[in-house]
């Protein structure tokens, strides 16, 4: 028996032994694996686990308000319930989803277009509102059907709103969703600032920035208005459900900007323009505060905030009225006769004329083999400086221009800001043209074009020829004159306001420089301009004012404001002259100067001056014209 069993047992013991070895080998394999995972690759997996569990949730900062000089809010935020759709979860079947949703909630074709545009812009990443301003019924209906729509939720969002719609649209501008280009620009800003500010990356958490100022003050004061977006470090589950907030970097709201603009004045002027196109700038000469900055026609900036739909965009963009064009900032016009007071002052300062010196105007002026005509047939006869301004005598200025020469004119006009960037706090300002021999040399390519011809100087005297300035420049020059040569940089924002404490920090610039001018000479010009409104070209418009105002009308021949786009039928209207007007008031201590153009309106005295009169009446005396609806504060 034993001899039978013994080998069996040995064999069994031997196999148990082998099994033990096998087990040991396998366990060592496991230990190796675990050492590999937990010691060698620990840091890699630790990092993976961290990034697994932590998500940064942006907390956008409240954008600063835009407030006019009297405290009226013209750019604000409102909170509304929106229907948010997570783009990543609806890939592919957007239309089906919107169709399903529209069974319970009204979704307009515009909403649909806007949403799809956002999706495309974002390359299908992120969450976008499909509908905003949901009412209670809609909210309740959606909540009841919520299970049908994964990736769709109702959220409270803050929206930008311009409560007066079209009013001051070019000035305020608008914000829009951050585009890929904006992102890249901000990214590079951050990278550039990183060197000197180690916190830059943290403080400018990009995903928290969803909107950015695209144009107007919203654009130029973007960094003030935006604030610093915050973020929450949130622990999330595998399903992306937030569990708890680990750390929170609260957002810092943007600061309010307080404008120098009087929005009621702005409103009044916009109303007075009616259907006319044009630009109007009013400045407080002592400070450089821009009181009104009108560009007609306007657009509604609210259309742009959530992305303008293509139909509205096409309408605005293709309109021959050019509603998107910021005329006072970018439109360049020949100043016409409004240039004459400055020419006269130049003559006095350069001693090319005295105030009492007279010329004889036969109604024309011959230079070389060209005859320059005066507006008045038969001429103004004997003309001194005051009469030249009051009656707007062209011959006087043809002669003056000839006597001064192009460069003397340019040297005098330059410090007034003609053909110069004013430095106003808006982007995209046009420079215009202050002609000089040097300018011509630099501007043209062919040698025969580069040469300045004496004959080209003559029409400069009456604000024609190569002269072309923005209305902002004209207003700025008028302010410099009214301010006796003290130059203040024009600006639209006068203070930055803390949103909590309401403390205001003035941003108004100090005096830029002084133009050395003889006060007697200034008096001559101002007196002449006052006389313009008393007995001159704009006397009719300024009958019976309770204050003394100086002014000067102008009529500029139309050159090219995109004449190629003009429709054939409308040609006649678009070829009419532009009516210009400049003014200052009250004469003894001006608190407001105006420069304006009414495009294709005809004579300045007839169309522009009455608008200026109403504006001055309101600004100086508080009189509201009967024909204009009362200003109503937005609810």
């Amino acid at each position, binding site marked *: 028996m034993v001899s039978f069993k013994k080998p069996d047992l040995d064999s069994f013991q031997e196999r148990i032994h082998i*099994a033990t070895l096998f087990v040991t080998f396998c366990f060592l394999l496991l230990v190796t*694996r675990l050492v590999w995972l937990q010691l060698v690759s620990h840091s890699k997996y630790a990092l993976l686990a961290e990034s697994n569990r932590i998500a940064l949730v942006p907390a956008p900062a409240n954008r600063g308000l835009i407030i006019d000089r009297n405290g009226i809010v013209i750019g604000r935020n409102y909170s509304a319930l929106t229907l948010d759709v997570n783009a990543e979860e609806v890939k592919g079947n957007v239309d089906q989803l919107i169709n399903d949703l529209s069974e319970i909630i009204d979704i307009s074709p515009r909403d649909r277009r806007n949403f799809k545009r956002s999706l495309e812009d974002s390359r299908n990443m992120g969450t976008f509102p499909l509908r905003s301003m949901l009412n209670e019924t809609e909210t309740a209906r959606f909540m009841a059907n919520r299970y049908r729509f994964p990736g769709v939720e109702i959220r409270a969002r803050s929206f930008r709103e311009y409560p007066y719609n079209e009013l001051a649209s070019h000035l305020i501008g608008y914000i829009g969703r951050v585009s890929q280009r904006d992102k890249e620009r901000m990214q590079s800003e951050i990278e550039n600032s990183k060197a000197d500010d180690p916190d830059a990356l943290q403080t400018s958490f990009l995903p928290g920035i969803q909107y950015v100022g695209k144009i107007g003050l919203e654009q130029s004061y973007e960094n003030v208005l935006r604030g610093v977006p915050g973020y929450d470090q949130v622990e999330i589950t*595998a399903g992306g459900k937030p569990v708890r907030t680990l750390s929170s970097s609260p957002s810092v709201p943007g600061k309010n900007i307080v404008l120098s603009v009087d929005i009621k004045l702005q409103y009044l002027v916009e109303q007075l323009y009616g259907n006319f196109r044009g630009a109007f700038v009013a400045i407080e000469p002592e400070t450089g505060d821009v009181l009104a900055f009108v560009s007609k026609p306007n657009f509604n900036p609210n259309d742009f905030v959530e992305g303008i739909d293509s139909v509205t965009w096409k309408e605005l963009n293709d309109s021959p009225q050019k509603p998107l064009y910021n005329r006072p900032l970018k439109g360049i016009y020949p100043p016409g006769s409004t240039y004459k007071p400055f020419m006269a002052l130049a003559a006095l300062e350069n001693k090319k004329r005295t105030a009492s010196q007279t010329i004889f105007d036969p109604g024309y002026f011959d230079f070389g083999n060209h005859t320059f005509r005066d507006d008045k047939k038969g001429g103004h006869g004997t003309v001194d400086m005051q009469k030249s301004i009051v009656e707007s005598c062209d011959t006087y200025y043809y002669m003056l221009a000839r006597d001064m020469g192009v460069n003397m004119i340019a040297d005098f006009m330059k410090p007034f800001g003609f053909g110069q960037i004013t430095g106003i706090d808006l982007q995209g300002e046009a420079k215009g043209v202050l002609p000089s021999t040097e300018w011509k040399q630099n501007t043209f390519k062919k040698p025969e074009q580069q040469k300045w011809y004496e004959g080209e100087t003559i029409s400069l005297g009456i604000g024609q020829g190569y002269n072309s300035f923005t209305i902002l420049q004209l207003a700025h020059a008028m302010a410099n004159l009214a301010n006796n040569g003290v130059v203040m940089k024009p600006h639209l924002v006068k203070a930055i306001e803390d949103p909590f404490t309401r403390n205001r920090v003035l941003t108004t610039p100090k005096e830029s420089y002084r133009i050395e001018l003889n006060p007697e000479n200034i008096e001559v010009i101002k007196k002449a301009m006052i006389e313009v409104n008393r007995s001159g070209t704009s006397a009719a418009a300024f009958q019976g004012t309770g204050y003394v105002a100086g002014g000067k009308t102008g009529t500029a021949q139309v050159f090219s404001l995109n004449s190629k786009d003009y429709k054939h039928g409308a040609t006649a209207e678009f070829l009419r002259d532009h009516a210009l007007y400049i003014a200052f008031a009250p004469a003894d201590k001006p608190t407001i100067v105006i420069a304006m153009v009414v495009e294709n309106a005809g004579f300045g005295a007839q169309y522009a001056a009455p608008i200026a009169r109403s504006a001055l009446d309101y600004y100086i005396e508080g009189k509201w014209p009967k024909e204009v609806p009362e200003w109503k504060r937005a609810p």
Partner: protein
Amino acid sequence: MEKSPLIKMKAVFFSFFAGLDRQLGLILLGLAAVGFFTFLSASQNTPVQITDELRNLALSFVVMWIVSRIPPKWLEMGAVWIYALGVTLLVAVAAFGLIKKGARRWLNIGVVIQPSEIMKIAMPLMLAWYFQKREGLQKTWDYAVAIIILAIPVFLIARQPDLGTALLVFAAGLYVIILAGLPWKWILPFVCVAVIGILLIIIFGGTICAHDVVWPFVHDYQKHRICTLLDPSSDPLGKGFHTIQSMIAIGSGGFFGKGWFQGTQAHLEFIPEKHTDFVFAVFSEEFGLLGNLILLALFFALIKRGLAISASAPNLFTRLLGASVTLIFFTYAFVNIGMVSGLLPVVGVPLPFISYGGTALVTLGFGAGILMSIHRHRRLVQS
């Protein structure tokens, strides 16, 4: 002298535990403790209650205690019947089993049972019985018979399909056959083929895992599991997600672990089946390599003790049965840890005594009871 109640109680207590192998008992107690504490953390955010785990542990203990009282002779006598019952039930499953998650594994006989579970014990019982019966008379064709005994239920289970259980049952039977003396000249070729096969799969993983390549004999989902193992990142959010996330959990645990209840992967639901099959990832994340080494040491001690008990068992039946049951414990542990740590493909194998699950605990308790019984009755036989 009247015995004091305390001493009486003590006597009852000892007689209750009498015959239980102390070493094995302590190891099992250690594993059950690890299992319980891991369960507390891993069962967070699951519908499973602490009472469920306690009930399962108690049930497992009761099963072990009862089985430890059963003489191995009785098991030997019942082996064929248990096996026959198991196969009958498997046939019944194939005929009118319940289908869940695409597999026909369950049978409703008033309560829903999974007959393949019975096979895990029935298979070594049957084969050990067979070799005991043929002891001293063994011929080559005995192994052939043994392989048929093994193949029938494995085939039935594999076609449910339930590759994990089929492999375990197959392993349980194979251990008996090998330990019973299957000649090395038969074993070695298979080992060689297996090793070469695994190497080939690893080397040519890219080619054979291509979408349109159809593998013979295996289901599509099984092919996916193997391919995912070779390269989990090939499908990080789909088939590879489980493996990647459990590897992250283990790796991020480091040496000391994140601390009990502090595992982020586990508590933020990145680990699938975190209280059942993937519980090792939770344990690893929270207790680190240190905890893992202790756990592995416990399993190793369990296997060593089990093999020692089997080696000193009185007859072939108990020796084969004990060693096979012990190696089944090993297989569970190795396959589970290997799968959770990304060494082996994902198969539904629980970690013995740690994973939550009543059926597995009862089976394991039964196995532990067999070892206890063998140990207990060895002395009785010898004396």
